[in-house]
C-alpha cells in the first residue's frame, strides 16, 4: 500500500518535474533545471544497491578476513564493519542538506562550511570559524570513511554520527540552531517536504519532516564518503609497483617499531579508534586543551584525543586538534622531538607509551611524508549541488 502510494507520488512528481522543466526551459535558456530537486535512485560509487533499496559498501578489503578483530593492522586486513544500508534517496537528500545553510540558525553556515570536499572535508584552518566569525577551539575533522568509525569529535565524546551532528548544529558558536527551529525551517520548504517524503517512503507523504529524518539523511550522506583506492591501497592489495622506492621506504618507517606510526594509525583505516595522549603543542597563546578529560570526566585522559585516520591527510592541513602544524613535515617532526617535549610546565600528562625518542633522520622524516601522500584518494568525491533546496546560497564550490 505504502509502496503504491510512493510510486504514485513519485510518478506525479516526475510528471510535474518534466512539465516544470519545460516551462522553465521555455522561459529562460539557462541551466535552471537543477532547481527541480529529484533524488537519485542509484547508489554512490563504492556501494551496491540491494533488492531492499539499500546501498551496501563494496570494496576490495572485503576480500580479506582477519581472524583477529578487523581493522587492526597489516596490509591485507579487513575493515571494521561499515555503517551502511541507507537508501540512494536518503544519501542524496543528505547531500543537499549537507550543503544547505538553512540548517544553521541564521542561514549562513552549512555543514560544508567547515567540511569542504576539496579540502579533505576539513576547512584548511587551524581552528574552524563558526557563527558570526567566531573562532572555534578545534580544527574540523575530515569526514572521509566515517562509515567505519565508532568514535567522533576530537575528544571522542560521541559514538554515533547522529549524536555527533547534534554538536555543531546546536552549538551557539557553530551553526547556532535549535532542534525546534531546525524542524520548523525544514518544514517551511515545499522542496524538502517532497524530498523527505521520497527518502522516507514508509510514512504518510503528508507527514511533517522529523528531526530524526534530518539526522538519518545527513548520516547517510556522510557514510557514503569512501576513500579506499589510494596508491597505498593498490600496494596493499598486492600490486608491488604501486609505490615507488621512496614511498616504500616511507611505509617501512611508518610501520616499523622505531617510528611506531602504524601502532595507532593502524591500516587499513589508519586509526585504531582509541584515545591517545601525545602532548602536541597548542598554537601560540592558546591554553592546553584538556581533550577527552572533559567528556569522560577522567583526569587520566587529560590532553587525550581520538587517533584520527590518515586517509587524505595531504588535503587537510594544518594538523592536530588545534592546527599547530602547518605541514606534514612539521607534524612528523613532532614525533621525533622527544617524549612530552611540548607539554606545558606544570602539566602532568600521561603521555602514550608509543611516544618516545625514535631519533628519526631527516631522510626518514621526508620519506614518511612521501608515504603519507600515497594515502590520497578522492576518486569517489561527491558532486556539490549547484543550488540547494532552500534557495539560500551555497558558498562552497
Amino acid at each position, binding site marked *: 500500500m505504502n509502496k503504491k502510494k510512493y510510486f504514485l507520488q513519485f510518478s506525479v512528481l516526475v510528471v510535474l518535474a518534466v512539465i516544470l522543466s519545460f516551462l522553465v526551459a521555455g522561459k529562460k535558456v539557462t541551466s535552471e533545471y537543477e532547481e527541480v530537486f529529484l533524488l537519485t535512485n*542509484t547508489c554512490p*560509487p*563504492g*556501494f*551496491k544497491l540491494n533488492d531492499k533499496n539499500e546501498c551496501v559498501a*563494496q*570494496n*576490495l578489503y*572485503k*576480500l*580479506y*578476513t582477519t*581472524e*583477529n*578483530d578487523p*581493522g*587492526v*593492522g*597489516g*596490509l*591485507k*586486513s579487513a575493515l571494521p564493519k561499515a555503517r551502511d544500508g541507507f537508501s540512494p534517496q536518503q544519501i542524496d537528500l543528505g547531500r543537499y542538506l549537507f550543503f544547505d545553510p538553512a540548517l544553521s540558525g541564521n542561514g549562513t553556515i552549512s555543514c560544508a562550511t567547515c567540511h569542504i570536499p576539496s579540502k579533505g572535508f576539513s576547512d584548511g584552518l587551524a581552528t574552524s570559524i563558526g557563527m558570526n566569525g567566531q573562532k572555534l577551539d578545534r580544527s574540523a575533522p575530515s569526514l572521509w570513511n566515517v562509515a567505519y568509525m565508532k568514535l567522533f569529535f576530537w575528544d571522542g565524546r560521541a559514538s554515533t554520527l547522529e549524536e555527533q551532528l547534534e554538536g555543531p548544529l546546536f552549538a551557539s558558536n557553530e551553526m547556532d540552531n535549535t532542534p525546534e527551529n531546525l524542524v520548523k525551517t525544514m518544514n517551511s520548504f515545499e522542496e524538502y517536504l517532497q524530498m523527505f517524503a521520497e527518502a522516507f517512503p514508509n510514512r504518510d507523504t503528508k507527514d511533517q519532516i522529523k528531526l530524526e529524518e534530518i539526522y538519518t539523511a545527513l548520516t547517510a550522506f556522510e557514510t557514503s564518503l569512501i576513500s579506499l*583506492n589510494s596508491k597505498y591501497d593498490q*600496494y596493499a*592489495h*598486492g*600490486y*608491488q*609497483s*604501486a609505490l615507488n622506492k621512496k614511498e*616504500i621506504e616511507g611505509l*617501512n*618507517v611508518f*610501520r*616499523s*617499531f*622505531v*617510528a611506531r606510526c*602504524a601502532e595507532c594509525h*593502524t591500516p587499513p583505516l589508519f586509526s*585504531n*579508534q*582509541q*584515545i*591517545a595522549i601525545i602532548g602536541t603543542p597548542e598554537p601560540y597563546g592558546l591554553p592546553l586543551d584538556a581533550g577527552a578529560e572533559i567528556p*569522560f570526566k*577522567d583526569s*587520566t585522559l587529560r590532553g587525550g584525543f581520538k587517533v584520527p585516520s590518515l586517509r587524505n591527510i595531504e588535503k587537510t592541513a594544518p594538523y592536530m586538534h588545534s592546527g599547530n602544524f602547518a605541514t606534514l613535515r612539521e607534524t612528523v617532526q613532532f614525533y621525533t622531538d622527544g*617524549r612530552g617535549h611540548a607539554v606545558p610546565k606544570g602539566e602532568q600528562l*600521561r*603521555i*602514550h*607509551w608509543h*611516544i*618516545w*625518542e*625514535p*631519533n628519526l633522520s631527516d631522510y626518514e622524516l621526508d620519506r614518511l611524508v612521501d608515504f603519507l601522500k600515497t594515502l590520497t584518494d578522492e*576518486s*569517489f568525491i561527491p558532486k556539490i549541488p549547484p543550488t540547494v533546496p532552500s534557495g539560500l546560497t551555497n558558498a562552497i564550490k
Partner: protein
Amino acid sequence: MKKTTGLFKFLAAIVFLGIGVFVGKTFFANKYSEATIPMPSTMQYRNVGFTTDTTQMAQKEDFNGKVIEVKSGSSIQAAVKEANPGDLIRVFPGTYSENVYIDKDNISLQGVVINGKWPTLDGKKKINDAFLYSGNGILIENFKIINYKGNGIMGQAGNNFIIRNNWIIDTGVYGIFPQYGKNGLIEHNVLSVIADAAIYVGMCDNVDVIHNEVFDNVAGIEIENSRHCLVENNYAHNNTGGILAFVTPGLPIKTTFDVIIRNNFIVNNNHENFGAPGSTVAGIPPGTGILIMAADDVIVENNIITGNDNAGITIVDLTNGDPKANDPNSEPNPDRVVILDNIMYNNGNNPTGELKALMLTQMDTKGPDIFAYGGGTGSTIRDKNKYRSFGIDNYGPAQITDTKDITTFMLPEPVAPRSVSDHELGELTYYGICAGCHAFNSRLIGVPTNIIQAIHNNNPQGIVDYISNPKNLREDYPEMPPQNYLSDEAKMAVAEYILALKE
C-alpha cells in the same frame, strides 16, 4: 738400524696421511656445497586426538616452489622481490645490512649456516628492522640478527608464521614481535640485549613459544593482549623480568587469556631495567621471575623459578602494575590464575620499591616466591604451603593437577585465507573501483557500463585488454588510466561481472 727404520716408517706414514688429507680436502671437499638441500619444513598439522607418539600428519604443505639463493654481497630484499608465493630463499653466510620486508604470502627465508658462519643481518644501529612481514605463511629461520634500532623480526597481521633457530642480539625494542597474527610458532631462538621484550607476542592468537633462550633483556618473553598461547621449555635468565603475561591498556585488542607457562627455567632475572622511559616494561622491578598483569586464565606449571631477587611470581592488576595508562575498556584484574607445581626457592633476596615496603610491614626483608597485589577473583593454587607468599590468602585449591592434555595451542589446520568466488571478486572490484567513473546507464566520468557491454559483448578478454592498456577512443571522454594494479584474476573477474551486469 731397526729403530731408525721404525721411526722412518712412522714418519712416512704421517707424511702420507698428511698428503692424503690434503688431497682429499683439495679434490673432494667443496666447502659450499651440500649433499642435500634441506627443504623448508613448512608447518605440519597434527590431527587433534593423535597421541604424541605418532608421526602421522593431518596436513602438510609440500614444497614445490623455486629456490632462490642469496650469496654474500647481494641483497635479500632483491630475492624477496623476485620470489613468488611458495618459494624458498636461501641466504648464505655473509653480512647483509638491510631492511627486508615481505608483503607476499608463503615465502620461506632460510639462513644457511656453514662451518659456524651465519648469514648475519647487521643494522649497524642505523636501520630500523631486519625483517618486516605482512604476508601469511612466512617462515624465517637460521639468521643471526644484530644491531637494529627497532625489531629483529616484526610481523603485522600475518597468520601461520614460523620463526625459529634465529640468534638475535641487540635489535632495539623487540627481538621477535609478531603482531596481530594467528597460529604461529616461535621456537629455538636465542635472544639477548633487547631493550623491551626479546620475544613479544602482541595481539595474537594461538601461538606456541617453545625452546627459546632469552637473557640480558628487559623482558624475556611477553604475551600481551593475546589469547591461547603456550610458553614452554624456555630458559629465561638475567632479564629484568623473565616471562610476562599481561594486558596493556589502550590497544584495540583488550584481553589476554588462556595462557600456559609451563616447564620453563626462570632463573636469576635480576638485570637492571634499561627499558625506554614511558614504556610499559620500564616499570618492571629487577628480580621479577614471572609477571601476570590483568591477564586471565593463566596457568603456571612445572617451572623452575629461582634466584629472582624481587619475587618469583608477581600477580598484579593494572592500577598497581601500570598506573600510567587508562582505558575504561580494559578489564584491569587478573582473574582465575592457576598455579600448579613449580619449584621455587632463593627468590626475593633483594626486593625493591613497593614490594620492599610491603614486606617490611610483614617484618620481612625478603621478597616472596609468589606476590599477589590488587584485584582479581577465582585464582587457585596447588599445594599453597610449599611457597613463601604474599597476598594469596583468597586463593582456593586448584581444580586441576596438570595440563598434559594440552600439547599445543596452534591450530589443527592453517588459518585459511578468505576465499571468494570470481563473481564476488568481480563485484567488489566493480563497485569498489570502477563505479567511481562508470554508472550503469548514465555518464559519470567514463562511458556508461551498458555501452561497455555493447562494445565487448561476449568478450571479457576485450575488457581485460582495454583496462590493461586503455586507448583514448572518444574525444568527448577523458582517457582512462590503466588498471594494471589489479591482478589478472581480478581483471577477468570484473570483465565478466561487467558483461553480466543488469541494472
